[in-house]
């Protein structure tokens, strides 16, 4: 598979992709735990406008432009560690990149990371929606 050109994201995705099922689950739990809490100013904005509507679990994403780079923030329930772990991958893997780079993240991220495999095909679409939403927000922030 072609490299993503996004070293931090690539490292996280490759680590997950190369792990076996159990290691992958443990990694997701760690990633979920490492998702930093939202800054207070954003925590007040957890409303429908900032929610990913297609995802069954309440997932909130925030993108801010800062000198040509994007700062990313996100939140998802502790009770949904797979979803929260995925949000953590995106936030940690893409924070500080440019809008163009974030908007270019490919659709096959779930496949590369092996998440599609542990979720089952019937349950990966909510995470695809999180990725699509983040790309859309990045494109807007960069415009």
């Amino acid at each position, binding site marked *: 598979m072609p490299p993503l050109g996004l070293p931090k994201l690539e490292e996280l995705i490759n680590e997950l992709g190369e792990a076996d099922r159990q290691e992958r689950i443990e990694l997701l739990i760690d990633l979920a735990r490492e998702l930093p809490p939202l800054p207070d100013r954003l925590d007040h904005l957890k409303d429908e406008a900032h929610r990913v509507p297609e995802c069954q679990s309440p997932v909130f994403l925030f993108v801010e432009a800062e000198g040509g780079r994007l700062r990313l923030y996100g939140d998802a329930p*502790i009770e949904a560690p797979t979803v929260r772990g995925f949000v953590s991958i995106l936030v940690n893997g893409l924070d500080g990149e440019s809008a163009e780079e974030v908007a270019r993240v490919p659709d096959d991220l779930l496949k590369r990371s092996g998440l599609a495999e542990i979720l089952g095909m019937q349950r990966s679409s909510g995470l695809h929606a999180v990725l699509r939403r983040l790309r859309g927000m990045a494109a807007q922030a960069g415009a």
Partner: protein
Amino acid sequence: MPGYAHPELLVSADWVAAHLDDPKVRIVESDEDPALYFQGHIPGAVEIGWHSHLQDQVVRDYIDVAAFEKLCSQAGIANDTTVVFYGDRSNWWACYALWAFKLFGHNDCRVMNGGYKLWKAEDRPLEREVPNYPATNYTAKPIDESTIRAFRDDVLAHIKAKKPLIDVRSPKEFTGEMLHMEDYPQEGSLRAGHIPGAKSVPWNQAVNEDGTFKSVEELRALYEKGAGLKPTDDVVAYCRIGERSSLAWFVLTYLLGYPKVRNYDGSWTEWGNLVRVPIERGA
């Protein structure tokens, strides 16, 4: 749990807490999120996943008898073990697993009322250690599956005979405005709507905010006053892939005591893709 037809099928979090070390009891977590169990589960609980353990990975069906026997043996479940299911999403998957265990003839299956949500909300202990139990020599005794499972031909016969069907999907899926639950896109069906004659009783009306089941009076009002069911009815319940309807199957069978309820696990992902089967749209 006053008033339920088979109250012994439902246990409280207190009951589970008092039986954590009971060798005759096995606590089983069944979740939608495959990592939730490993992040922290009821001490001593084992995980049985709907996707990773109970479903065949090639054919759209449950695992076979030999695979089920192996699964139970490895989880330290014997034929006479009391198996208590709980999980996320107000016990959808717990009910789904219980239904599958019933197909394979496991006798003593129960659900922990409130599921993961209530256990967590009450700050009860969770642990990450995955327990290991001595293997058993489980022998499955599958029941006549036609008593609790409906296939598409059964459903066709059912609508011809004008017998009651319960559709537990969201209102917009029922009317055909949406092909899937609002939050779950793309779980592929080519046509939208419902099976003719089905009554809409969205699954979440059967549970309270804290994850517990509604009272017997509320459930009767929902299914009998609301959807016109009678306890003697032959009922088929369905949803999109058969998981939310197994919660309705559990409620009708064990909490209200209906003797003849079947879960159509092919559900809308089968019916909405079949050629030339009748479909209705609108409320």
